[in-house]
């Protein structure tokens, strides 16, 4: 902690606070109220926020700092998941071996892909990573079926070796006895806040991942990565070999993705190949850009934003809409519901797409730029207020 600047310490504390208080912050509406479906404070979704946050933080180390746009990061996520599930199958349901293996395997895998892809930059690099990820996806479905269990997905069966387990062992993912699925519900009046062990484990990793990325951002290594983004030619003529730097960034972000995949499998011990598809890779890119590439918190916000939409907006169907607009005359109600139903339920992608377009056009720096603008506007307003009051005082 000593090694951080004051403002960075504040950012870290902010992230820690958000992570710990998430069950409260994400559940602002009382149970049973009309707004309750906008609550995001249930275990499944909170876990998703956390491990996709880890994923986006890692992706940001590559894309945000060096500007190399990888379109194949989902491959590392998938590899991480498969590794973790294999550990569950072979050793037992404690998540630690799974997480360690997922990071190591994703690291090796990204070293391999990075070594080849980083021979090119710009669009060619993106295409190479995309090709590798699609290749991994296709192979997971076909020739690698013994490793991945193909379309069914890799899961834990009763006849798996699980050498560290006996008949008294816990049969669900756990951390030394703490079951991931265990949830403690705190009822305060009409509110029900859920505290889930799995979420807090993920949040712990999120905080650690964030701290590491903070250190990298502020280090000489991070400075070099940012220099790669602005001018590689100058860096070469300054005596820096850029290849190992980009490769290191690629491997680090691949390991983050592996960790996210491991966490994903730890929350729900099942790994499918669709996790490696290019749409999943694209989603990671969206998260980072939406939140603000190159900023510290942006990618986490972006991940949360997209996952919120995916899980909340997709649940709103026509019946719910009719419920909301029941007070209107029938014809008008039907018309409004007809218009809105394109944007919710199965159509949530449309809403997300429009929002994404709006953000990219009006806030190229993502949500973080929006936050900054609001902050500046607020500061200016306060400063103006002060000067005008200062001017009026002598007159009185």
């Amino acid at each position, binding site marked *: 902690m000593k090694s951080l*600047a004051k403002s960075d310490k504040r950012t870290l504390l902010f992230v820690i606070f958000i992570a710990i208080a998430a069950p409260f912050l994400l559940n602002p509406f009382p149970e049973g109220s009309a707004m309750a479906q906008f609550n995001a404070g249930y275990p499944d979704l909170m876990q998703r926020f956390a491990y996709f946050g880890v994923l986006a933080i890692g992706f940001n180390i590559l894309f945000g700092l060096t500007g190399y746009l990888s379109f194949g990061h989902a491959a590392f996520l998938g590899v991480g998941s498969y590794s973790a599930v294999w550990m569950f199958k072979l050793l037992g349901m404690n998540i630690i071996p799974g997480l360690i293996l997922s990071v190591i395997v994703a690291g090796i895998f990204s070293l391999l892909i990075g070594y080849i892809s980083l021979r090119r930059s710009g669009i060619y690099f993106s295409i190479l990573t995309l090709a590798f990820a699609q290749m991994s996806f296709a192979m997971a479905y076909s020739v690698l079926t013994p490793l991945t269990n193909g379309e069914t997905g890799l899961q834990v069966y009763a006849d798996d070796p699980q050498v560290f387990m006996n008949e008294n062992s816990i049969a669900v993912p756990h951390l030394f006895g703490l079951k991931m699925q265990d949830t403690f519900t705190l009822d305060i009046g009409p509110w029900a806040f859920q505290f889930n062990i799995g979420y807090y484990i993920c949040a712990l990793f999120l905080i650690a991942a964030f701290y590491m990325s903070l250190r990298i951002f*502020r280090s*000489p290594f991070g400075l070099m990565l940012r220099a790669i983004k602005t*001018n590689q030619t100058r860096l070469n003529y*300054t*005596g820096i*070999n850029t290849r190992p730097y980009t490769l290191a960034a690629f491997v680090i972000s691949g390991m983050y993705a592996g960790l996210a995949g491991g966490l994903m499998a730890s929350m729900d011990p099942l790994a499918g190949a669709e996790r490696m598809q290019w749409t999943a890779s694209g989603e990671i890119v969206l998260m980072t850009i939406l939140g603000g590439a190159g900023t510290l918190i942006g990618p986490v916000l972006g991940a949360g934003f997209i996952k919120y939409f995916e899980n909340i907006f997709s649940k709103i169907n026509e019946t719910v809409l009719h419920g909301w607009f029941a007070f209107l005359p029938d014809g008008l109600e039907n018309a409004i519901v007809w218009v809105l139903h394109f944007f919710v339920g199965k159509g949530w992608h449309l809403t997300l797409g429009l929002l994404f377009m709006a953000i990219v056009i009006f806030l190229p720096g993502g949500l973080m730029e929006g936050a900054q603008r609001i902050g500046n506007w607020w500061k200016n307003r306060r400063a103006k207020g002060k000067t005008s009051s200062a001017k009026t005082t002598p007159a009185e």
Partner: protein
Amino acid sequence: MGILEVNNVNKSFGGLKALQNVNLDIEEGKIHAIIGPNGAGKSTLLNCFVGKLVPDTGTVMFNGQSLLGIKPHEINQVGVSRVFQTPEIFSELSVFENVMIPCFAKRDGAFTLNALNRVHSEQDIRERAEEMLVDVNLIDKRDMIASSMSRGDKRRLEMAMCLSQQPKLLLLDEPTAGMARADTESTIELLKTIQERLKITMAIIEHDMGVVFSLAQKISVLAQGTVIVEDLPENIKGHPKVKEAYLGEAQV
């Protein structure tokens, strides 16, 4: 024995012979100017020194070591820095960060996985970068983003970046092009003082004869890919071959 020896270098692009049997000997501790009309091959020659181009034939020796086939970053690590014709700086980073990067490169080499230290606590690097910014008179602008500076300031920044590495040989490609008179003069002063203080060898390409004659201790004149004259500045001024190269044969 010069610090940089160029022997019989040839380079052609398709049918165009950019360099023909170029011989050059840059002495240690001197400022050596390379002049010549447009298209004479000056920049091509410089590109052959820093690993951007590889000559078809011939040798380029720096301190007894061949520079051919070596990557640009390795050439820099043995002590050759280059200032470009159009400033190559890290335009999205602050002025101070711009100067810190070469200092890191000098101290830590071509690659170090220095991911846990803080840039803020690297005292020696910061002091060195600050000194350098004072030298080039940019210390007031240390927190500015480099891209928002004037062209002259960008050039001075790039020079500071190269000088902060204390190279053995500094290559300058038209360091005063596009500068206002006052900036040009301060740049000349800067190069002179640096040269006297640190005894850095410099090879300088320049069109502005005022700059050339106030800085150079030796001048090579390049025309159509060959060195036609190499002599002391006072002998270059009235040299018939130089006049011919610049004004064309009809004028002689």
